[in-house]
């Protein structure tokens, strides 16, 4: 790792912390949301599904701009966080995690929702006939059966957060150790014409992203073979 500068290493550490925490929050929030989307008959299903998918198509600048305004002192979210004594979210680690949760939401929710829909209602009916409570069957039937979806969602959400750039650039304020993630660090190197540093860090990102996607494909391939047997 001698090739990377201390500030590069700091950016890598920060990025991993943001991505890990984001993935954890998404598991806790995204799983019930995916469950609701998979099971509901409500007319709200389609609009909510579209809302969840928005970050896939929205430019990060739109998300970043809205977050900057909403989380600012005049924004609805900003007034709320101030009233709760949390202060303002832009330029903070917490703010970065909040932004990342929104930004990576579909990457968690969609695979989990797909897995839950593919499972069908049959396992739940069996669980109910064995007198399992809905909560019990959710934890002991649904989650184990949907594990491939949860694993895929977690990996995608983690990797997508590591690759986040535009939103961070707009709400981060480029603070070392707090909001200067790898992608912003690379951008800084390029802008300052430190191409050697940019190359080394970019190569790390390339290697990491490829390894993650390869691992995901291998995992999915094994799952499919597993169910076929």
């Amino acid at each position, binding site marked *: 790792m001698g090739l990377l500068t201390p500030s590069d290493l700091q950016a890598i550490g920060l990025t991993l912390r943001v991505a890990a925490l984001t993935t954890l929050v998404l598991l806790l929030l995204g799983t019930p949301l995916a469950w609701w989307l998979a099971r509901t008959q409500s007319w709200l299903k389609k609009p909510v599904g579209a809302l969840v998918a928005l970050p896939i198509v929205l430019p990060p600048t739109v998300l970043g701009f809205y977050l*900057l305004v909403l*989380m*600012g002192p*005049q924004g609805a979210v900003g007034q709320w966080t101030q009233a709760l004594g949390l202060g*303002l979210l*832009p*330029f903070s680690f917490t703010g970065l995690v909040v932004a990342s949760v929104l930004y990576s939401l579909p990457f968690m929710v969609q695979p989990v929702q797909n897995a839950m829909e593919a499972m069908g209602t049959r396992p739940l009916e069996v669980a109910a006939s064995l007198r399992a409570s809905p909560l019990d069957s959710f934890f002991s039937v649904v989650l184990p059966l949907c594990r491939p979806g949860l694993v895929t969602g977690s990996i995608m959400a983690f990797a997508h957060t590591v690759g986040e750039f535009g939103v961070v650039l707009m709400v981060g*304020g480029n*603070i070392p150790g707090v909001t200067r993630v790898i992608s912003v660090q690379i951008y800084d190197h390029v*802008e300052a014409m430190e191409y050697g540093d940019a190359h080394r860090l970019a190569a790390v990102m390339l290697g990491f992203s490829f390894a993650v996607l390869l691992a995901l494909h291998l995992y999915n391939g094994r799952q499919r073979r597993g169910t076929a047997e």
Partner: protein
Amino acid sequence: MKSALKVLACSAAGWVFSAACLAGEVQVAVAANFAAPIKAVAAVLEKTTGHTIRLTLGASGKLVAQIRNGAPFDLLLAADTQGPALLEKDGLTQPGSRFTYATGTLVLWSADATRVDARGEVLRSGNFRKLAYASPKVAPYGAAAVQVMDRLGLQAALAPKLVQGESIGQTFAFVQTGNAELGFVALSQVQQGGQLKGGSMWVIPQSLYEPIRQDAVVLRRGASNEAAQALMQLLKSPAIKDLIRSYGYAA
């Protein structure tokens, strides 16, 4: 009717070939602090010559890096002298075209009308959460802000509160939205027609930072561009110098 058709044909042809119709077009890279004045200058240029300006705004250092890597600009209005000088040394400019079109003024500004006092004591009070400045590596106004904090002996005290914009334009956005209560921005961003547009500010004494002399230079591509030459002439005219001064520059 005929002239309307001509304009239409011209702009259609211009769109397809981006070639020389009667009125030319100049592709200008402009340091973010000069965003407001260049739009006023563009309006004058278009009215007097028919030439139009296509603007690309950014931090000075970034624009220079882009030009060195082949960005297709005719003209650079930088926020410093080093960038244009570097391009000149690299042989990327029209020889002899470099000149200082404005000298910038750094201010400490808040969107809150009561926060900044006329002597900048608020910086020492520490009575704020975030202080925004532009990336000193690429934005001369950011480098000037670092000098100010240094000469006031406040660099260590302010360090935990600093947030960095990638250009003076983004820095202004951080302060304008109130996410940073204070920020080092260009006077030209908060003043128009000699009046503060809103908020409160401290015009930082020149003794606290090196003068921000801003150079313009014609790039190689612009040497044969009539619109680029016309814009350079315009920037040197007394009327435009007055206009530039009204945004808070020395010109």
